[in-house]
Structures are given as C-alpha cells and as structure tokens.
C-alpha cells in the first residue's frame, strides 16, 4: 500500500499566501483585494511587494466583490481574500450577479473554512459554502487538502479564465503532497489504490482518509483513497472507475452533508452506477467553539469517523 509522509504541519492558508507571492512576481495582471484580514489570509508579502496592485477594502465584503468584478474590465485578475463565511454567504448576490452571471475572471479565495476555524465558533464556521458556490452556473469550486496543494491551486487558478471559489483553512495540518505538483482543475488524484472501498475526500479530510486507510489495511480492508480537490467540475470518471472496482464509497468533507461533495458524488452514482454510500460530513448543524481536534471528533470529521463509515458501507455491499 502506498504511504504518504507528513513533511511537517502547515496551514493551507499559508499555501495560498505563498502562491499569491509567486503570482505577484510572475503575472503582472494579478491583483489582490482584502477586507481587513491581510495577516489571516497571509497576503502580507503580496501587499508589501506590490502595493500598487493590492487593495485594502476595509470591512466591506460586498464592495470588495464588486470592485474585483470591475477590475477585470481592464484585464486584471483579481484575487479576493477573507474568511469563507464572508466570502460566500455574506456576498452571495454580489458573486452571483456581478461576478458569475457577468462572466468575470475573479478568484474568490476563502480561508478559515469549516469547523476547524475553532474557538471563534459557529458565526465564523461556515459549513454551507461549497453548496452555495457549486450551485452557481459556471463557477469552479476547489477545496485543497494541504499547504503544497493550496499553493499549486493558487497558481493554477490564475491561468484559468473564469470565476473560481478556492476554499482553504486555518489550522496547521499535515503537508504531504508533492511540493512541485502540477494542479489540474477538475482532475481527481488517486492517492492509494484499493479494491474493497472507495474513500473520496476533500480538504482537511484527505489526510484523515489516508490515516483511516492505514488502519483499515491492518484490518484487512483495502481502501482506494481519492483526493477530490475540485468539487465542480467533478471528476465523474475517476469516481465511477473506482466504484466499479470497489462497489461502495465513503465521502468525507468538512461541510454539511447537504450541498457538499457527498451530494455531488451521489448525483453521479445515482445517474450512472447506483452504489452504497456513507457520508462523513456535518449532520445539518451549526458548529460551536472548541479546538479544531475536539470539534473534528465531536462532529465526526476525522479518521475514526471514516473508519466507522467504511465498516458501515461494507455491510451494505
């Protein structure tokens, strides 16, 4: 079984910051906007290196999205930065009308997504953003799993012409993907090959899925772990090819089961290959204050939850 080594814990938001720093040097059309969260979004380098291309908007997210849409008229590639909650729900209509319906090349970059934001609690822990963004016709939705992948994704979306929602997080988590990876939007990454169950994970849950697969392996269960970094457009083929082999699937995400990756996978399976599926996701609930690890445990979003879901789905084969 292929194994992955943690190169050291790092936050995905720093991967975004590193990607943006690089884009500042390599692509003069890239501009960055932030709504009073420069440090949290790791946008300091870009701001310091390219002050003329950096726009501090203040605490005014609706204005930020509109300004970003306007900056594209004149050939700029705007990257907006704030927390996931304020990047989506707060500005849904601005994204819908001024960005996506208007076909503007804006990159909405969202940190502190999901429950691992931690102690700030439910007001800041959005678990509905993937659903909100994937419903917009023409929107690309990406949720990266570690520092290296987030950096690679940040570089890749600058080359993609069209609106993108890039979701990442706050806590330091395992950094295990290749530093020099090429990020292909819409292309799933099969991390381990297996024959008994397919585990499809996104974001912080990908490392948890790898941890679960090790335990399952010791129990004699062969798990195929797929990293779905792009939720829309979804790599239908990778999912179908895998479940044709394994006959059952577990989806894992730091998001409500309604509207998330799991539902997108269900749609593909229902249409092409009905397959037993279990969901590792929040159960239509808000979060609460706590440490990320405590919250992942309480809300069933870790390797233990994936193992349990796998055992359940295997019984349904």
């Amino acid at each position: 079984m292929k194994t992955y080594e943690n190169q050291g814990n790092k936050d995905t938001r720093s991967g975004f910051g590193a990607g943006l720093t690089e884009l500042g040097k390599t692509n003069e059309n890239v501009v960055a906007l932030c709504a009073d969260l420069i440090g949290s979004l790791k946008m300091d380098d870009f701001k310091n290196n390219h002050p003329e291309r950096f726009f501090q908007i203040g605490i005014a997210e609706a204005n930020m999205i509109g300004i970003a849409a306007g900056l594209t008229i004149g050939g700029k590639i705007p990257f907006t930065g704030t927390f996931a909650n304020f990047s989506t729900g707060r500005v849904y209509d601005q994204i819908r009308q001024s960005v996506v319906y208007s076909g503007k090349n804006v990159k909405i970059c969202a940190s502190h997504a999901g429950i691992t934001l931690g102690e700030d609690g439910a007001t800041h822990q959005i678990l509905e953003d993937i659903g909100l963004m994937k419903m917009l016709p023409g929107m690309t939705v990406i949720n990266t799993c570690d520092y290296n992948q987030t950096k690679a994704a940040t570089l890749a979306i600058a080359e993609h012409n069209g609106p993108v929602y890039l979701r990442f997080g706050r806590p330091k988590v395992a950094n295990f993907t290749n530093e020099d990876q090429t990020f292909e939007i819409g292309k799933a990454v099969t991390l381990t090959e297996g024959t008994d169950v397919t585990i499809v994970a996104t974001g912080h849950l990908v490392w948890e899925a790898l941890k679960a697969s090790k335990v399952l392996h010791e129990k004699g269960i062969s798990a195929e772990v797929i990293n779905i970094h792009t939720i829309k457009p979804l790599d239908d083929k990778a999912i179908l090819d895998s479940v044709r082999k394994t006959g059952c699937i577990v989806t894992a995400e730091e998001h409500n089961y309604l509207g998330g990756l799991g539902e997108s996978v269900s749609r593909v399976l229902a249409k092409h290959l009905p397959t037993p599926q279990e969901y590792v996701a929040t159960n239509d609930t808000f979060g609460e204050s706590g440490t990320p690890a405590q919250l992942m445990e309480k809300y069933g979003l870790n390797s233990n939850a994936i193992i349990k879901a796998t055992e359940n789905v295997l019984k349904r084969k």
Partner: protein
Amino acid sequence: MPDTKHLKDLTTQVRRDILRMVHKVNSGHPGGSLGCAEFFVSLYNEIMDTNATFNMDGRDEDIFFLSNGHISPVYYSVLARSGYFSIDELNTFRLLDSRLQGHPTTHEGLPGIRIASGSLGQGMSVALGAAQAKKLNGDNHLVYSLHGDGELQEGQNWEAIMYASAKKVDNLISTIDLNGKQIDGATDDVLPMGSIKNKFEAFGWSVVEIEEGNNIDAILEGMADAKSKTGKRKPVCVLLKTVMGNGIDFMMHTHAWHGKAPNDEQLAIGLAQNPETLGDY
C-alpha cells in the same frame, strides 16, 4: 456648441423606442427610462469619448455602468442608436432567446454592456474597480455610472461611497437619478434619505447638481462641470434632478409607471406626443 437639435430629436425617438418596447411585451420599466432619456442621449453622443468598436476591456475610452438595471429600455435604445447593435434588435426586448434581457447582462454578449445589473446597489463598486484598473493601466479616460435615488437605500452603495473618497478614485463620475420615486411611492415616504448632497459631501465627494435633468443644455453644462472636477483626488457625484415618465404627460410626476407598460390606447397617446424624428425601429 453641440447640435442640441439633433440630440433633442434623438431623445424624442428614444422615447418612442421605450414606449414601443415595453408595450410590445407588456412589461418593463418605462418611468425611469423616460426620465433618463436626455441623460443617456447626451452621455453617448456628447459626453463620453468612446471607441467605435466595442471591447469588454474598454481600454483607452470612457466607459459607463448602469447600476439601476431596470431602466434597460433607455439603455438599449441609446446603445442601438449609437451603433452598438442594430436598432432592429430592439424588437426582441424581453423575448425568448434575445440578447436584450429584462435587465442588462453580459451573458448573451450584447455589445455595450460590461456588467449585469438589476439586483440593486452593485454598480458603484464595479465602476470603482474599473476606475482603479484604468489607473493601473495608465489610461486617463473616465468611468461613468448611473444609480437610482431609491437605490441608495442599498447599503453596498455606502461601502463604495466611503471607499471611493478614501482611495481618491478621481476618475469616476457617478450620477444619481434624483426623481424622488420608487416602487412603493415617493422616496420621502418609503424611506426618507435627507440631503443626498450633504451625504456625498460628508463622504468626501465633489458634488455637481443639475437642477434641470431633462434639459439637454443643462445636462451638457453640468456634466462638463463634473468632468472638470475629475483628477482632483476626489470622486465626483452628479445629482441629476429628473421627472419620472418625462415626455409622456400622463406618465409624469408619478411612480405608477415605474414598472408598468402602456396599453394600446395609452401607447397611441404617448406616441402622438412624440412624433417620429429619426425613424422607428
């Protein structure tokens, strides 16, 4: 001096277009459209410096954003009569498969439109972004925008108004159509906003008032004044006092025609008050 006779004739023709467009599909927004006919005609024929061919990026030309997208009839009529697309296409307003959607959009690729609008309060932010892009590109042309007065009740405007002066976006001229009306009645009854002039000035803008917003000479003079105030480290606001429904006597001075089309008889009366000048579409 510009040939205001031609502009007046054009305005009359634009009024006819507006009436005929909304009458044909028995929907649309004639009131605000008629109130801004002189402004649009002046803007596209005398005020703005635009390129002959439409390009989304709008480099090296003045560009315009309509924030109160429901007055699409006047926008479409003036765009067509300025050569952005054929006037025959005005026949397709609000019909299935048309590029002339109920509210303006880039989605169907209609030349002249650079952003979708309709959900109110978003246009000033977009105009600010475009104005800042012009500065980054070393493009000295201006960005114009138009907003309804009722639209100022949307909070995003005030984020944008605060930002524009803080960031000294002085290549933007935002015009407010002060017709004092919104869907449910007079703005002073629905949600009184006090002095809009004082508010913009308090937010650090230069303000130009055009008392006769349906008088082409007054518009040209006021907009020239506004233009002279650009480039002075302050955004510029034009308060354009208009009469909703202007030019059709029974539609004037009321909010009743905000979003209502005339019937056959009303259309005939309205057209009779505005005889054909440059040819109907």
